[in-house]
């Protein structure tokens, strides 16, 4: 079971008030977690990554275990602590503003 924390706007879209718990088939990676997210919540299609190329949107980041893993191989296994549910997988909207 993977715990996923979404940014506020995406939580609103999926009517979630807190973190989401996902069962991910096979190796848990950035890609398979987002696959599972989009499968459960089709409204998220296109909001985290390009639906065709699967490329992460420019202002989206993935954090895990206090690390920015956005630039890791999307197919790479997530840290054990995320896979075991000890730590969440964070989808982050990059900070901006003024």
């Amino acid at each position, binding site marked *: 079971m993977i715990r996923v924390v979404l940014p506020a706007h995406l939580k609103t879209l999926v009517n979630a008030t807190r973190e989401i718990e996902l069962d991910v088939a096979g190796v848990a990676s950035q890609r398979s977690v987002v696959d599972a997210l989009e499968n459960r919540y089709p*409204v998220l*299609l*296109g*909001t985290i990554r390009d639906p065709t190329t699967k490329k992460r*949107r420019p202002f989206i980041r993935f954090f895990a275990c206090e690390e920015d893993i956005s630039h890791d191989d999307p197919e790479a296994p997530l840290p054990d602590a995320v896979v075991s549910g000890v730590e969440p997988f964070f989808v982050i909207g990059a900070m901006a503003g003024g």
Partner: protein
Amino acid sequence: MSGVRVLVGTRKGAFVLRSDGLRKNWDVSGPFFGGWEMYHLKGSPVDPNRIYASQGTGWFGQLIQRSNDGGETWEPVGNQFNYDGVPGTHQWYDGTPHPWEFARVWHLEPSLSDPDAVLAGVEDAALFQSTDGGENWSELSGLRKQDSGASWQPGAGGMCLHSIIVSPKDPERIFVAISSAGAFRTDDGGKSWRPINKGLHSEGIPDGDAEVGHCVHHITMHPSKPDTLFMQKHWDVMRTDNAGDSWVEISGNLPTDFGFAIDVHAHEPETVYVVPIKSDSEHYPLDGQLRVYRSRSGGNEWEPLTKGLPQSNCYVDVLRDAMSVDSLDRCGLYFGTTGGQVYASNDEGDSWEAIVRDLPAVLSVEVQTLA
């Protein structure tokens, strides 16, 4: 009793303003989709409870929302806007070829006859259609693939298709306008297109009379005269009486002919409204005075309408899709500003009142006249 519903898109959400036919007391609901940029909301002329809305942010991309109950509740529908085939390239700011890339939906134009049919004008400039209530979108790619497409180049605001008008006389005839490219027309339902910019003259492009490259800000039409269009160009207010085959300038005595918004009176096809803006380097009204100008003669002779509008220290802008008219017996006008005010007139523009004053910057205003 008749009434109106004003759909307001802002930089940080959508708002719905409702009133009865008197248009004096208003109920304000929203924000819907708080924090999201709502570029445009528009209702179906056939089924006013069917409303489409463009929702997006730079972070999370584009969504399309649909309401079936007049804006009380919403549901997300399809948001896949894939260019037809290999998209190819247009000109980039530095003159190099740049691949067509979808950025956002600027304008939604519901069909005049089918509540499930809707057109979408997008950036990078292209026209999409849905025939299933917004669930699926396909490109009318004849527009982008016509001869000049590869030469289009974005302006500062992006290369957006922002105006869509379907002829009420002939549904196969559609007019569109694209920033920094110009106006285009199809007579076969979107299969083939041609530029309709003859008579436009623009400084700031190498050939001021070029067939394409003109920064058209908005076009509008009265349904009873489907061959007559009015245009607010970057500079110049224009009209055509032959469906765009040729245009003439009607700026006349306007104090400045730069601006974005333009609209036509609901019952008088020769009564036109614009909101002059000082210049393209100062996107605010002349002399700090917010004035709507009305021509009752189809252009050239314009009168300022100021009653109820701020006449000092006003430095807001009125964007291209932020003015609309209702079709009650005495035509009502509405416009929103980048300062968050939505002004309404229930007397054809003679006087104005602010319905709301402190919304986020207003991107679009559309009015529905309800039976």
